[in-house]
């Protein structure tokens, strides 16, 4: 029997890319035929259709599943097919090269562990040859061979091949990409595919199949520091399982984990699995796992678990290289959904630094939009802090997609952390949380006992908008309902905790806001619902509110903005009250919001049963 009958002990995802009509489907058909991987009768069936349609048979037709394709003569979408050769199963993604179909090429290449990039010897290096080469690099496909096809059409001449090799290597060199091999072939006639060409004795390198055989499985991501983005939290039975894929490193029973950006910490109690005896004690990169923790901490989808020594970056902003596939151009200032690993959050494009022309890698500046199929360097700003990595260090947590309306419209890699104004406070909070000494009573114990979670109700706005009055009303209402609530009036800090501040420091609000935030943090740790106003900060309420948010993170903050006339509320405001206020209605709205956010989980008097997996 041939190689196909050997047990495939290994597998590799391969993508075939290149300019339209440079022979990708033909190469694929040839790879199948030469490895004996076609089902019986397949060639005969396609030959029959060709006869019927009055066409000459081509290997390319083997993969044209749709009638439209046979009419157009091009492959339409990423087709997944398989063949086996010398103990390895190849999952081939036949990526089309037509310009309109770039998104399919990208979908294919994003899953690939290796690539073959085709260039037509007769036509030479074309636009898509360059674009695909550049995108492979951007998508992180470092392992690829360049296949110079249709050598039969140039009389198998070495000088033609050498010219293409020189030109293309120079292009790739500009972004430091190096192909494994550059191979002269004729896919149609089978030269240098499985068998060495009799026509090109001047070529001493490997055939296409030998070259594929030399591609390695991806390098050991398991040896990197741990990254495990939380996918979901399950409570189907007595176990509270945190599910996620380990994207780098290893997670072991007994490991102390930090969840970013919340900075929550806990120890891995068990790794759960179905139909596995005994249960595993470790999960490594690539595996989807479920862990239980020694403590009932509140973590949710989007956080990234790591070890404390090697934390991911946290910020609201980063710089990135992005390719855009959307129907509408990407616009500066427009809202998109950002997805980094499992985190989904609203974002905007804060700056378009430049558009990169993939034809000559020239950079074009001063654009406010990125059009479909363009690549650009951007700064992205998210609504809340996100945990991520630079793509040079970590693959999975260093890349992201942007969703426009309902569709994934672009993808990119993180190139740089952008510092935001909360950086110092965020670091303070992180260090403080790591060093925090806990008693026997945990946050969840308090929540069970009190029948509600801790939260901050923060009322912002200018002077005389009724903030204090509303704050007092909410406090009174919550306490009347049997909740544990406390009005933290900033004025009370002035002559005590803030007594040492100079006039200048009082004027700037920054240090006052920091102290206020730390006091609020202490109070919410006691399990209270803290009601506060930004009264002491005057018109700097927006900055103060942001600082308080950073310091109490990840406790929920319910933000209410009050003003006499309509005005712009600070970012992330939940309820806007402008004009004359109906305080009873406002209180009702705030209580509703507290319920919606899971702070007031059930009615008073009911036995507290918290659903942790919100």
């Amino acid at each position, binding site marked *: 029997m041939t190689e196909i*009958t050997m047990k495939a002990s290994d597998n590799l995802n391969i993508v075939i890319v290149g300019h339209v009509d440079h022979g990708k489907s033909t190469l694929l058909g040839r790879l199948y035929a030469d490895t004996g991987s076609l089902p019986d009768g397949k060639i005969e069936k396609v030959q029959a259709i060709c006869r019927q349609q009055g066409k000459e048979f081509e290997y390319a037709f083997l993969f044209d*599943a*749709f009638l439209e394709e046979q009419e157009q003569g091009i492959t339409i*979408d990423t087709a997944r*097919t398989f063949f086996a050769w010398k103990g390895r199963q190849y999952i081939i993604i036949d990526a089309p090269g037509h310009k309109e179909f770039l998104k399919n090429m990208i979908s294919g290449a994003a899953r690939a562990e290796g690539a073959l990039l085709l260039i037509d010897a007769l036509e030479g290096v074309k636009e898509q040859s360059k674009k695909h080469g550049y995108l492979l690099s951007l998508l992180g496909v470092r392992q690829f061979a360049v296949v110079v096809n249709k050598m039969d059409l140039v009389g198998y001449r070495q000088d033609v091949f050498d010219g293409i090799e020189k030109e293309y290597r120079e292009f790739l060199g500009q972004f430091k990409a190096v192909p494994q091999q550059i191979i002269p072939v004729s896919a149609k006639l089978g030269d240098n595919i499985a068998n060495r060409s009799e026509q090109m004795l001047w070529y001493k390198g490997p055939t296409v199949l030998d070259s594929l055989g030399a591609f390695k499985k991806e390098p050991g991501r398991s040896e990197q520091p741990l990254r495990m983005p939380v996918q979901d939290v399950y409570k189907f039975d007595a176990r509270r399982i945190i599910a996620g894929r380990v994207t780098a490193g290893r997670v072991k029973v007994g490991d102390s984990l930090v969840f970013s950006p919340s900075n929550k910490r806990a120890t891995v109690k068990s790794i759960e699995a179905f139909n596995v005896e005994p249960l595993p004690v470790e999960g490594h990169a690539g595996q989807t796992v*479920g862990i239980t923790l020694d403590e009932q901490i509140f973590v949710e989808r989007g956080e990234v678990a790591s070890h404390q020594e090697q934390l991911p970056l946290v910020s609201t902003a980063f710089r990135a290289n992005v390719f855009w596939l959307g129907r509408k151009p990407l616009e500066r200032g427009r809202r998109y959904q950002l997805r980094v*690993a499992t985190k989904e959050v609203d974002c905007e494009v804060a700056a378009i630094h430049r558009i990169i022309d993939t034809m000559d890698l020239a950079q074009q500046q001063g654009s406010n939009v990125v059009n479909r199929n363009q690549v650009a360097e951007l700064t992205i700003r998210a609504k809340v802090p996100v945990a991520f990595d630079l793509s040079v260090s970590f693959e*999975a947590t260093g890349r992201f997609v942007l969703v426009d309306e*309902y569709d994934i419209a672009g993808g990119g890699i993180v190139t740089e952390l952008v510092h935001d104004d909360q950086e110092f406070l965020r670091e303070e909070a992180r260090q403080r949380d790591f060093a925090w000494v806990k008693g026997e009573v945990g946050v969840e114990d308090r929540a069970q006992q009190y029948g509600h979670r801790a939260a901050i109700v923060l009322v912002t706005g200018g002077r005389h908008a009724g903030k204090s009055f509303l704050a007092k009303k909410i406090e009174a209402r919550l306490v009347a309902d049997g909740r544990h609530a406390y009005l933290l009036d900033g004025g009370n800090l002035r002559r005590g905790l803030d007594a040492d501040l100079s006039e200048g420091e009082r004027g700037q609000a920054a240090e006052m806001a920091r102290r206020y935030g730390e006091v609020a943090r202490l109070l919410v740790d006691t399990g209270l619902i803290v009601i506060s106003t930004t009264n002491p900060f005057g018109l700097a309420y927006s900055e103060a509110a942001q600082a308080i948010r950073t310091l109490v993170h990840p406790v929920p903050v319910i933000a209410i903005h009050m003003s006499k006339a309509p005005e712009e509320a600070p970012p992330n405001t939940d309820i806007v009250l402008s004009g004359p206020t109906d305080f009873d209605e406002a209180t009702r709205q705030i209580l509703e919001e507290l319920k919606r956010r899971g702070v007031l989980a059930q009615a008073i008097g009911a036995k507290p049963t918290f659903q942790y997996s919100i």
Partner: protein
Amino acid sequence: MQHLRQLEDQSVYILREAYKHFDNLAMLWSMGKDSTVLLWLARKAFFGHVPFPLLHVDTSFKIPAMIEYRDRVAREWGLQLVVGQNKEALAAGMNSSMGRVTCCTALKTNGLKQLIEQKGYTGIILGVRADEEGTRAKERYFSPRDKHGDWDFRDQPPELWDQFKTTFPPGTHIRIHPLLDWTEINIWEYIKAENIPFIDLYLDKGEGTRYRSLGCAPCTTPIQSTAKSVDDIINELRHTTTAERSGRAQDEGRGMELLRKDGYM
């Protein structure tokens, strides 16, 4: 073995993404080997639980042993089973003699569409594999269907890394395909590795024939085979160059392309 575990991890990841993002989710279960492996993977993903209903579109022409198997497994594993049937078409006498594509469209495609509409499902998990036949090779893991259940295969949204299409306009739904990367051999190797109970129509019981692919009785023919165990099947598949669905009449000509564009599974 390592490859099987990688496939398992990817499928489990997809199932968990589906469960997280779709409030009204269901899984199609035809009791065949693929959707039974899919069901098993759901139990893997959710630690022994199946937190969504299983749908069976009953054409009334299924092989009786399949229905017995369905009810037994559903009972033993505590599954929530939803059976749908295009009763109108059956009452009007629909059967395969009226044309295979016509019959599949009425009893399966339309049966499924009716079920989706009645129950308002926004996500349907299916066990289709890319290597089964050409149109399935073009699928995404998360594949949108419009208001009529139609599939626009020429303009599919991109699918990048582990990010899938999980948002969609009202009135449309998403087909989710966790088994896309599995091959027929992978399915049997996994059944063996996990010791998954499967329906014995796939085995030869001494007559020298077995089913390789299961569908409706009138349109599915057994193959010549003496495979009496999972090991025999795996061994047989390693040596065959006959297509898996060669016993499925609906694949003839352009059947599957036409069916799938209109919302067939």
